């Protein structure tokens, strides 16, 4: 069982020539995620969502605090879906998939082809990223993250650059593939509807990188954005979001 344990995580970026002030991205975040749950990290711009994900992925160092991402006591394998697909332009779709695999074998190729088929891209495995649309490239990015059979899946606003229709289709797809694999997932978004549709739990961050609220979402899957129950939870989350904004505006230091 995968566990993400975050204790008093702080990240401060030093001043740079282009931005001569230090920036506090995270201000003491503590949380834990255990088991096969889908957690959405929701917050406005500047609340440190991406920084949190990067530190969990191990590609950024925290200024203070600790993160443990383990599977049965050993470091967990992480799969990352970025905001933009980040494919190697000189490799075909299939080769991009295989790049993240530790072993190169017929079996890994079959697995790559399987995950491509899950995102409806079997026919384009031989093409190069530049020959695909943005939506197709992002689907390769999603398939690639699942290919490494991650214990923990990290997703950083993967649909934020998509048009509404494409984003909706991909959300449907993600719900199904997640229901199939049940990976521990940390999903960053600023879209309340997206968070309610996908997550079992919503962690709300306020500007400055402080956890404001932790909201459970106990709804049956699959969920549709027009379900009454989904809309009711969305309204409740929005209400709490408003109260967070009010708290920020009036200087409430609630945690």
């Amino acid at each position, binding site marked *: 069982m995968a566990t993400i344990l975050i204790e008093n995580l702080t990240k401060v970026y030093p001043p740079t020539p282009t931005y001569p002030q230090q920036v506090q991205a995270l201000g003491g975040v503590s949380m834990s995620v255990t088991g096969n749950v889908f957690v959405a990290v929701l917050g406005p711009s500047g609340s440190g969502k991406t920084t949190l994900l990067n530190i969990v992925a191990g590609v950024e160092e925290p200024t203070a605090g600790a993160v443990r991402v383990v599977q049965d006591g050993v470091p967990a*394998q992480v799969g990352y879906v970025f905001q933009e697909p980040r494919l190697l332009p000189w490799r075909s779709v299939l080769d991009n998939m295989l790049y993240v695999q530790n072993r190169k074998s017929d079996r890994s190729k079959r697995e790559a082809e399987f995950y491509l088929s899950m995102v409806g891209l079997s026919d384009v495995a031989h093409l190069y990223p*530049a020959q695909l649309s943005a939506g197709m490239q992002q689907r390769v990015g999603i398939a690639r993250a699942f290919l490494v059979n991650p214990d923990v899946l990290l997703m950083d606003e993967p649909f934020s650059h998509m048009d509404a229709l494409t984003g909706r289709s991909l959300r449907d797809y993600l719900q199904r593939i997640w229901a199939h694999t049940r990976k521990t997932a940390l999903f960053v978004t600023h879209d309340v509807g997206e968070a309610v549709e996908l997550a079992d739990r919503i962690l709300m961050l306020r500007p400055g990188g402080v956890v404001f609220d932790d909201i459970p979402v106990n709804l049956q899957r699959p969920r549709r954005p027009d379900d009454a129950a989904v809309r009711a939870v969305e309204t409740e989350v929005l209400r709490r979001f408003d109260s967070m904004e009010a708290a920020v505006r009036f200087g409430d230091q609630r945690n």
Partner: protein
Amino acid sequence: MAYDTSVTPDAVADLSAREMRRSVMSRWGLRAGVVIGWLAFIGVWYVFSGAVLGTQQLPPPHTVAAEAWQVVTGDGFGATLWASLLRVIVGCTLALSASIVLGMVIAYSAWWRGLLGVLTRFFVSIPTVALAILALILFGVSGLGPMLTAALVATPYVMSSVAQGLTGVDRRLIVMSESFGRTRSQIITGVLLPSSVLAVIGGARQAFALAWRITLLTEVFASSDGVGFQIRRSFESYDVRGLLAWTALFIGLMFIFENFVFRQLERRAFGGAHVSQATAESTQ
């Protein structure tokens, strides 16, 4: 491993088909635009030739095409072309070799970047025509002048583009690799080296295009053979048809090298055909 393909939603398949259709239509639109562009260019040429300048000053396209055909099928075309091509290849090779070394030096050393930056600004500021005349004075009417001038003029530009390619490796790809647990050596072979190869191919392409232009210009002043010399001869005998025919042949050669040599090389290295174009299409 038992695969359950039933999880693939139909909606995703529909989406694929729609995206592919959009991509194909966009490619056809681009091709139609190219054809219309060429037709418009030839049309404007005819109008200027027939109604504005007169056929003496600006012969119509079909006359120039006939003259070009005569040049190609006549005696001496191969020798003339080879004389220029050899200078271009040597000039280009010299420029590219120097650029790779200097590009690496300025990519990784601030001191050299400062020093070569000054020299680059100096060389870029010298008018090419002055260098061509200088080559005539220094080397006389020979093949050496055009070669060295081409190498000298192309090197600063190509060097900058190689250095930019080397320093401009997409940091996000490295972060992606790290997040998937790729080792340092895997990142070097999987990301850094391919990125550098692209910079070198881009530099070769730029060096070739510059070397062609500069070699021809220098041949006009300082050579007794080659395409540039033929253009000068046509000009001196007021043979506008011949001048335009040689110019058209020059453009044709550039087109052939661009599309059948460098673009193919780029395709092999970069994968997707017409990367920038396809990227633009995909974001529409």
